[in-house]
């Protein structure tokens, strides 16, 4: 076998992706701060998100803007 790492801990890859995603989103003016905070909170609790959950995080922007 080579020295390549196995992805058997597949959540590690997903965690990397989510970290990078939130980092990119935080630098984008199109993503309001509270949407970002809602997503950070969501992904700290679980690694997957559904469309209604994304919609709910987007809806938070009116409450604070």
């Amino acid at each position, binding site marked *: *076998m080579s020295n390549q790492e196995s992805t058997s801990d597949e959540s590690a890859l997903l965690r990397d992706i989510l970290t990078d995603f939130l980092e990119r989103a935080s630098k984008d003016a*199109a993503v309001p701060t509270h949407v970002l905070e809602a997503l950070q909170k969501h992904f700290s609790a679980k690694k997957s998100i559904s*469309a209604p959950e994304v919609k709910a995080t987007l*809806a938070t922007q009116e409450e604070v803007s």
Partner: protein
Amino acid sequence: MIKVQTLHIEHFRGIRNLRLSVDGENLAVRGPNGSGKSGIVDAIEFALTGNITRLTGTGSGAVSIRTHAPHVDCKDNPEKAKVTLGLTLPSGTKFTLERNVASPSRPTVDPDSDETRAALKYILTHPEFSLSRREILKFVLTEAGKRAKEIQALLKLEAIDKNRAAFQTASNAATRDASSAENVLTTARTNLISHLKISELTQETVLSAVNDRRTVLGLKTYGELTADIKVSDGITSESSDPKKKIPRTDAIAKADRILAFVEGTLTKETPQTKSALDAVSRLESQPDLLSSLSRQTLFETGVELVIDSACPLCDDEWDQNKLLAHLRAKIEKNKSAVSVKTAINTGLETRMTLIRTIGHELEQLSKYATTLGLDSDAKTILEGQSTLQEIEKNLNQSIDYLEKTKTALRNPGTLLPDVLAVAIQNLKTELSTLPDLSSAEAAKQFLTIADERLESYRKAKSDYEMHKKRAAAAAALLKHFTESSEQKLSTLYDDVESDFAKFYRDLNNDDEGGFSARLEPQEGALNFEVDFHGRGKFPPNAYHSEGHQDGMGLCLYFALSKKLLGASFSLCLLDDVLMSVDAGHRREVCKLLRAEFPKTQFILTTHDEVWSKQLTLEGIVKGKNLLQFRKWTVDDGPAAWDFGEVWNEIETDLSGNDVSAASQGLRRYMEFLMSELAFKLRAVIEARPGATYDLGELMPAVAARYKDLLRRAKAAANSWNQQDVVTSVAALDDRFGRKYSATNAEQWAVNAAVHYNEWANLSPTDFRDVLKCFRELIDELKCTACEGWFYASPLKGALDTVKCDCGQTSLNLKTR
């Protein structure tokens, strides 16, 4: 991870009762089609996971494990269908695992410890250790979107795709909401502009129109239009006569517009409405398109609803990933239908704006009719407004209302009842009898209505801005998630791509030594292209042969497994995966298995005798772990080439005076055995393309080879001055010669009449003599201690020994 030591299968699939001991080493099962080979792979998969992919995968239809995994005669007793595995873990822990079909989710594990349970739990999350040719090929031949899902499922990356799909769905919904809000804003703007009688909506034009009326009323004018300003502010006295509140000129203008709408002179054909009408025609001429489109909303809604592991309606559990993949495949398939729907909706949108405006005006005219005492007309006009609302609602599901859609695109006014025009005419007549309002009264009405329209416009604008921002945020989230996942997946796929290309080059170094490949994630799909002899990169099925595609599937699976499981890739079941690969390339597969996966236990099935021998020759499978099935019956299941069992069958035939069956049995067994011994002793047989050799060719060749080996052994013993060995080898040679002569085989080539084909004509007594001769002959070719067949060693290259497995027989062939 887990390795299989022993296997006991009872009443499972086509197998009645089969015990195997493989000692954690590779196993090859060879037999003709329908001999029960795949039953072994199914049994191991079932024991480890409780599932049988072949019975539950795509296309399995009404077949189920509970009903169809038991042997057909035990279909009503699934508890009898069971598989017991003896297993070991890397720690050395041994345990048994028993699972029966009646309760596949409750295996018996002994010892039942945290370690053994954890090992089973791990393998449950990695059922990809068992694959058939069909499953392996799907990584290569499927289209990009589906490939990404298959490979992500193998790599346990579904959550990435699920998240991306969630962002995609949310972004689509936000864009749709923003578009609707924009339409509402357009209508509100049109109504405001229409009322203010201005050509464009700017602060200056609004202030000018408003301040003109406020000046008439002696009210202060505004220098700027702020959000909190009410343009009717300051108006105090209102007329007590409601008829005087009706803006006569404006109302008549509205009535004229509605009459023009009904007559069709208000609507003109645009490029959008023309495209929409073309799209409707396509739908009408292609019922399948219409049918799939009508389900598209259902599929899209389904994707949003499948967020848990059970149905929200009945709570029955479902395979969430499988269901999502199924729905997304449907949505993907419907893409062309969706473009038709988009064209229709774009055309309809221009009509919708007008319909909404006319509806709003009908509502106002209805109120005026009531004020003027035209109750019946008021009711008709209000019904007209309801009709337009209904049309608007229906057109949102445009595909279900193709006729009305066509009419709406051509001339929506004809959708209104004829009596409406009469009612509007009546109202218009009554309106014309009203006295013109004084300029002060008209200014008051103007400002009051302007306030309403301005408020509507402000709200619509605020809503639109909100939805626009939300859509922009949703699009940004989708973009960033897609970019992040593609970047990370690219790194992962780079590793897989590199291993895949190396494995494939190893297999095809004769003509594709420069092979390379590209695996590239792109918006939820996974593009896969391979080099074709340096002429560029193409889809794998574009130019490569089926055999090469089989090889690619296997290499990609190995590369993915290496990435996914690393050192835990300890067990791999491959069910007839290389059927299109030629013998030369299969030899390279053996080398690949040995070089890259020396610690993986492979359990392979094949119908190909050459491939099974290659596996032995290349040291992938030890002789004792090559299981060869000769036949299968529904009553007894598969039967291996077992010496005692074959002899018993022949005796049974003879007892029934069926010499024909007994002679056929002897011939088939001798052909199999001589073919095996020819391989083991490295006998020389005339090569023919695709040859199937008969007993008349095989047996003399084996006998000649064995005698040649004994001759070499004697020469070697003489050179080493081992007279005792010379004597014992000479005795072997003499005995073998006599037994061989007794079979008459030496005469076969001389006199065709004296041939095994004549056995069927013998009496049972005479055939028993023949049988005795052959039994005594083959006894000379095996060890009396271990009963293993003699073989020449090594199996290729310069010969040095003739021996058996236990070592009791070991004849040196090398001279001093």
